[in-house]
């Protein structure tokens, strides 16, 4: 194990990596990085560890876990409807916009139906996960129509470089 003590003031390197340092600190760090190989090594180490953890995939619970969780809640959650409730939303459309979940279908069908039957849903923004790979490709296509086609299309022929 590397027993050398962390250089004093090196904590800012992680903040620098995460975009969590002030502009003044960033300037100082970059200056010091330019002249100190030790600091550069330490930055590389911190970055390597950070990237390694960030590359870890999402972890799924065993399939029966969520079935158990929902089954443990026999009484469906009744959503409180505010006095000035908006018009009910098209539930089928709302359901269709959500990504399906396998365990929901398997275990929670009855509970979900009960919830929907009981409440009037107020239209609310759902959450969105942008398909960044598809967007990058779409940008390549569109910009190739406006500017030089070769430089715009070339990235479509390589792996986009997004990691899960």
């Amino acid at each position, binding site marked *: 194990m590397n027993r050398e003590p*962390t250089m004093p003031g090196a904590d800012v390197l992680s903040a620098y990596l995460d975009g969590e340092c002030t502009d003044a600190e960033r300037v100082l760090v970059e200056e010091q990085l330019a002249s100190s190989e030790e600091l550069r090594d330490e930055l590389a*180490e*911190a970055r390597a*560890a950070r990237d390694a*953890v960030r590359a870890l995939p999402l972890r799924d619970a065993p399939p029966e876990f969520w079935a158990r969780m929902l089954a443990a809640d026999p009484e469906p959650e009744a959503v409180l409807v505010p006095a000035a409730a908006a018009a009910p939303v098209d539930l089928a459309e709302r359901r269709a916009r959500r990504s399906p979940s396998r365990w929901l279908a398997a275990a929670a069908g009855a509970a979900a139906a009960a919830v929907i039957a009981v409440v009037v849903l*107020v239209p609310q923004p759902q959450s969105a996960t942008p398909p960044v790979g598809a967007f990058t490709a779409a940008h390549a296509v569109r910009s190739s129509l406006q500017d030089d086609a070769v430089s715009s299309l070339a990235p479509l022929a390589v792996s986009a470089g997004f990691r899960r």
Partner: protein
Amino acid sequence: MTDGVPTWEEVARDKGRFMYTVAYRLAGNDEDAQDLVQEALIRVKRGLERYEPGSLEGWLARIVTNVFLDEVRRRRRRPTDALPDDPERVLPPSPGADEVSTQLSDDIQTALAALPEEFRVPVVLCDVADQSYEQIAAALGVPVGTVRSRLHRGRRLLRSMLSEGVA
């Protein structure tokens, strides 16, 4: 969802994977992670009444972390399971050659699990739960400067473990 406040069912469905991932990276194994998430979901259900719409993931990550830390403290009180709270503590002894995993993801997970909690929690909150330093500081009840230094030391420790093939 009403006024930006999700239902318990919505949390479980939309954020379940996120919660389980954070719990797994904190706890290091599936059994403990499942216990963590189960307890966290109870707290989520109770807390939804008071939930102020904002960063849902931040709120959930904080709950999972609190459950985790409560469990760590509870285990420490049992003398047989006490873990020395020494930041300089060396990691587990190197496994034999046949035990070394070739899967990179396993290595990192093992290294993460071997980190003392003091460092593992900020690393998981930052690099798994994507929380900002301020959010981590609020979750742990420490100043941002402490988050910075623990995060940096945690990363350095991880790196040494990975380069030495201890994991």
